[in-house]
């Protein structure tokens, strides 16, 4: 059970990192484009 939770937690964390920083888009990219 513990193994499952730890592994699942790790995978969720990885997914969250990927989603947050890459997939959900970065405001800064858009605003940088806008302001240059």
């Amino acid at each position, binding site marked *: 059970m513990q193994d499952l939770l730890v592994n699942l937690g790790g995978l969720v964390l990885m997914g969250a990192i990927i989603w947050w920083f890459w997939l959900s888009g970065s405001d*800064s990219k858009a605003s940088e484009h806008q*302001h240059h």
Partner: protein
Amino acid sequence: MDKTVTLKTTLTISGATCQGCAKKIRNALESLAGSTDLVEVDLDNQTVALPDGIDAEEAARIVTETGYPAEPVQAEGGECCDSQSEKAESCCASSKEQKVTLSISGASCQGCAKKIRNALESLAGSTENVEVDLDNQTVTLPAGVDAKEAARIVTETGYPAEPVQTEDEEDSDGQSEKTESCCASKKASSCHNSQSTGKADKGEAKAKAPQDAHDQKHTSADAGEQVVLSVTGATCASCVNTIEKALMSVPGVTHAHMNLSDNTATATGDADPQALVEAVESSGYGASVIENEDEADARKQEEDKKQYKTLLVKMAVSLTLGLGLMGWGLGTGTMMVTEANQLTWINLGILTLGVMIATGHHFYTGAWKAFKHHNANMDTLIALGTGTAWLYSIVVASFPEALPEMARHVYFEASAMIIGLINLGQALELRAKGKTSEAVRRLLDLRAKTARVIRDGEEQDIPVEDVQKGDQIRVRPGEKLPVDGVIAEGSTRIDESMLTGEPMPVSKGEGDEVSAGTLNTHGSIIYEATRVGSDTALAQIIKLVKKAQGSKPAIGRLADKISSVFVPTVMLIAVVAALVWYNVGPEPAVVHMMVAATTVLIIACPCALGLATPMSVMVGVGKAAEYGALIRQGDALQTAGKLDLVILDKTGTITEGRPAVTRVQASESDENRLLALAAGLEQHSEHPLAEAILAKAKDDEIEPLKVTGFEALNGKGVQGEHDGQTVRLGNRRWLEAEGLALGSLDEAARGITDEAGTPLFLALGETVLGVIGVADAIKPDSKAAIERLHQAGIKVMMVTGDIDATAKAIATKAGIDDYRAEVLPEDKAEVVSEMRGKGYTVAMVGDGINDAPALAAADVGFAIGTGTDVAIESAAITLMRGSLHGVPDAIEISRATVTNIHQNLFGAFIYNSLGIPVAAGLLYPLWGILMSPILAGAAMSLSSVTVVSNANRLRFFRTSHQPIADEQKE
């Protein structure tokens, strides 16, 4: 072609930049629309289309609460005409009240505006029908113009354009049916004719598309006033976005723009300034309304100074602690926690936390702000690295027995050292950044504070801001002119050098135009104010300079760019390492997992990163100074390396700037008599050409002949009386108009023109005696410097107010690729912008105040050191030696510096990057090697040593042209 029949554009939104935003908006509106499928978000046009009958006000409220300021689109009843477009959704206004508005980007100056106007002339009928609003980046066209076609033309001209919703000014008081939309849905355009059949929503009275600047000033009902705020705490593009969103969320704001380079935000609309301040403050930044620009400038300078000092203090505190801990570790030989030193480490841990918060809180808040915007920057790396180092260390110090013995190492010193070094880097960066607002301050100093107006027959001194158009203003000798106007009474000589660079005062009489900021040197005049406040020529120059400075990109934050990929990658590696250790690692698996994850995060934080750029910039700036190029802005050093076009001003830049007599050709008398007559005439004049002739006469020891009744005729020449005859010295046009034949002098005159000289004909009575050639000679080293630019692969262009023949002669002589002749001083900036628009990275080299806007508009402005103060302050680089060689020198140094920065960043990252797999335990299965604390420490110091030594290597750099010893001293 797809067409969403049931959906109508209902809202205009702002701040939605990605599919994530679109999804959030769709979800938020699901309850109202019935399904997310019935909500169409168009990110390109920043609009939301909803089914008919949806309460637009309610939808706008929901979307605004979701974080994207939204407003219902203007209500227009009427039938819908479809247009089939894929990208540019247009609103083809056909009602005559409607205007067509395009949103554009990249138009930064009047040059761009002119280009756009010219490009649209055929479509709009006349350039006068095309209104370009640079502030709001919009173009307004008369009703009936095909918006899509207009957008295509403007895009082709170099300014990406898209049609935005049309605005119906007649309807803005609310004469239309509720939400019949005009404009875009995602794939098909729908356009409407206004029929004005009902009552408008409240919000619809507000103009969605920002209006022309002129309208903004005068029709506050639509756009209102501009409120400028001074903002503190904004550091990156994410901050800009947050602040703009916050301002847009304030009711009444139609447009918001944050300028990171001078930390000001401008909100257009009729919002309460206090509400704007509160909105910015609630998003985590400081704000205050700028009422007096002078005060604001002074405040900014004061703040910069304070920030520099604060950073130095923070650096001193954190480095003292870091070095102290490091020294203790070295002294006692260990940084390991034992039973004996456990309590000491806990206390030191708490002290470190205090220091981290006190000296590095800005990194943590910066990291949080970046995180909120789905971004990772250098702050994230620092916060993550120092945070995990501290957290790990405090766990070790508190519960050493829970970890294997080899993992009982503390990293408190690393946290303190990283923060200290990065504070040092930021302080250096701040100093290298330069005082960009200095130029504007000098221009502001040119303004008169008060004006003496005549109202109801009485003279009274009033503040210059209170002068009205049409006021009669008296100006006495020695006084500055407060506003632009036309002389109504009296005549005088006005020193316009501050605006035109022309050193001699210009004679002005009734009906002549005068400009604000110029100096009345002679008589007392009364003139009528024609342009006041921000409409004066001086205010326009100030605005241009400010705009150019503001539109420059921030320092290439390469470290941030790398971090945005590096940090999330490191985080992923840490999680993967933890999972692998947990699943296949030896016991105690949980401990190993934690150690591996934290070590990866610690090792990934390169403390040299903050030093990488500023160290190189500092050495590069010093090296450039050695070559006589004073670099005032750190980013200019980086940009100079990318230049591919250098635009040179002619006078004083390529040439000496002082005219000299190059040829004297007599036809009817001897040359000495010719010169004596000319000198006799010119000794009454103060014109630079007169100086050249007098200097020549003096050199040749020729006594000037007596000439009486001197008169200077603007644009023609000078005349007087000698022996009862009229003596005239002037241009061909004038003498020919007077009916004088030039005869055989024509050829000599052509020769003078071919050599870029000005031929001056001298006539006594009705006989032309000869011609004198006066030319501004090319500086001896200009040609060699231009050749160096060519060798560096840079195109060279010249702009001058001279006639084509003169310009061509100089260009040929100096080896210039291209030239623009007869360019008015105020149009130089337009040429710069035009070339930038063509994709060139442009440098402008000039010396006069009239060059200031062009210098500021260029990617890099080079001011000749012998030029005016304002030119020097407007330029990023000042050439102290007055030689053009400074330009290729600065470019070569810049290229070397940028290479050095890249090497530094590589150095800053490489050890740490190599350390990551070791920290993750990649070598463990092979050789049983786990990350050793010694290696971690070594990697950290090695990267700093690499960066510092590599930056110092730049000190030995030599350009391809060696200045002679005495020049170097300058």
